[in-house]
């Protein structure tokens, strides 16, 4: 029994970071009032650029390249949505389409349909003294992103709820005009959040191709960006909530994969497709029954105009 729990936890900790980072990026962007539908596309460019960069440089550096790539796509989003007040959902969808088709085009042109050549994965950190403890031992033997994914939600939560900057970021997503009356720049705060969100989404993508896989595959991230959005909504737009939602989804997935190999009979009763649909169904249920405690940022998706009041 302990062995099974250990294996499930280990698989969850391996798979969750990409989802956690992307969900945190989405939270950061949306709390500042900018819709993050483009997370899927940012993850894709992050994954692609990290995999290509890792062919010529050490993998940790390549992860940084992936983050910058995600931020570059986010900068396009910011330019359209903050500078030119474009429709944020349209811009995000457009970025997704461009990343999807552009990634396929570049991959096919330079590497062929089987993905990029294999790269050096990020090395796992082993703590022998921890590894021998039952259950907790699952914490040992992961690459750096796993530990960052455990730490970063706490830091972001602290930043958003306990620092002046966090207060301003939240205010800019709820009542941007109030922030402007304090003499603060609404565009600057939103730019910061959007670029930060892009870095995190790019990191999520880079983690996919440097730890979960060892290359960029044609369909990466295969909808994980949308699951990150579900985690963000499920976690009520808070970093810790998004973390727990993402971890929960990743755990559910590990459980499903585990069941498929160890108890296939059970999957005749509850088909895999239904289990795969559960994260989205649960998110819809949460949205349906959240009632008055609506936690959507008040000015989400509303372009900021100084003159409009």
């Amino acid at each position: 029994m302990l062995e099974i729990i250990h294996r499930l936890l280990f698989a969850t900790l391996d798979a969750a970071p990409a989802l956690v980072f992307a969900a945190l990026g989405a939270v950061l962007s949306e709390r500042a009032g900018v819709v993050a539908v483009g997370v899927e596309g940012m993850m894709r460019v992050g994954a692609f650029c990290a995999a290509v960069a890792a062919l010529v440089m050490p993998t940790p550096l390549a992860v940084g390249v992936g983050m910058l790539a995600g931020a570059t796509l986010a900068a396009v989003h910011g330019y359209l949505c903050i500078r030119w007040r474009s429709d944020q959902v349209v811009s995000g969808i457009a970025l997704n389409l461009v990343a999807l088709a552009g990634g396929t085009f570049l991959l096919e042109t330079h590497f062929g349909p089987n993905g990029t050549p294999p790269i050096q994965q990020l090395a796992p950190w082993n703590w022998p003294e921890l590894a021998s403890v039952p259950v907790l031992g699952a914490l040992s033997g992961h690459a750096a992103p796993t530990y960052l994914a455990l730490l970063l939600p706490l830091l972001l939560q602290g930043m958003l709820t306990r620092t002046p900057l966090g207060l301003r970021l939240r205010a800019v997503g709820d009542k941007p005009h109030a922030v402007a009356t304090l003499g603060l720049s609404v565009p600057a705060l939103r730019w910061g959040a959007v670029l930060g969100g892009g870095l995190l989404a790019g990191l999520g993508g880079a983690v996919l191709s440097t730890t979960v896989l060892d290359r960029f595959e044609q369909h990466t991230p295969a909808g994980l960006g949308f699951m990150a959005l579900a985690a963000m909504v499920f976690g009520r737009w808070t970093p810790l909530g998004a973390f727990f939602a993402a971890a929960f989804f990743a755990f559910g997935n590990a459980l499903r994969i585990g069941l498929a190999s160890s108890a296939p009979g059970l999957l005749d009763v509850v088909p895999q497709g239904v289990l795969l649909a559960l994260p989205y169904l649960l998110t819809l249920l949460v949205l349906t029954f959240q009632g008055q405690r609506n936690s959507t940022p008040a000015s989400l998706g509303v372009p900021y105009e100084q003159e409009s009041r």
Partner: protein
Amino acid sequence: MGERTRQALPSVLSVLLSLVVCWQLIALTRDTDGTAVATAAYLEMLWGGIGDWPRFIEGAAVTVLTRPLGEAAMKAALLTLTGLSVAVAFKVGLFNIGAQGQMLLGALAAAVVGAHVTLPGVLHIPAALLGAAVAGAAWAGIAGALKLYRGVHEVISTIMLNWVAVRLVDNWLVVGPLRGVAEAGASISGTAEIHPTSQLPRLLGDSSRLNLGFILAVVAAVTVWAWLARTRSGFETRAVGLGDEAARAAGIPVARRAGFAMALAGALAGLAGAVLVLGTEGRYPGTLGAPYGFDGIAIALIGNNHPLGVGAAALFFGVLRAGGTRMQLLDVHKSFPELIQGLALLFVAGRLIWLAALRRRSTPTVATAAPPAPAAQVPHA
């Protein structure tokens, strides 16, 4: 500059700019002869979409024209239906990202009615189409109801519903309960093959895959246009989209108009699925392949949410995407037209940039035209 031109110009310029950027992209990713390859690839795309006219003039059979044109028309039909789906929802002020999921459900419903119901030919096709429309409308109706009764934003709910549809249909129903069994007992991928009575008839016989679905899409576009532009309920629908508070004050039943528009959006997307299944695939395939539902968002916005603009955009990108397969001859992946389409959407998203640039461009012409009149009046003053 007329108001209509001003409305259409950003879309046209965006598509042109996207064509240029993508041409440059092919040129840059080649080590030798970049520009020549890019031009050749674009020509292949053109001949693959509107028919191989050079070879036809040299004396090739007429099928070198009808096959590509048929492919382009069928792609255009699917893009028109999903584009209309997104545009109709836009008109009432809702952003329907869920066309993909609605289309999936429509395709499944059409496949089930086509394969498991026995009806004479005259009734079978309408029944399958109706089933698809109802399935799509029901799936969109969930998002509509959540919006109207629970205040759930439709962007989030339709994204979630898309994935629920993909997982339930592709990962469960099609591989499980509804999986087709071939004659010899061997299982095939996808659902059972539909009866011949439910196949959409080919319009040009064996010389192309052009079928009744194209007519259906054209009729849908014109009907939606007539409804929005010429009827009272269409006018009220647009009024709700422009400002629901004002519409409510004017006595328009806002919830009913929004609910109907969302259901119609779902029905149109569902019909797209039906056209795919009944027209070309013959069954619900293992997975639905190209994400026409997401493409619908691009088509709707490039068509400026006008039903006829949607038709025009769909026709244009239908031609490009049918031609995409021929770009493979020059080692350009067949999804390349999707990149052109995506970039065009990105440029359309910057609509205000275009309008600002056009205003700056047109101000000097106004300025040079205007001065003579005041100048003539100066002596009198």
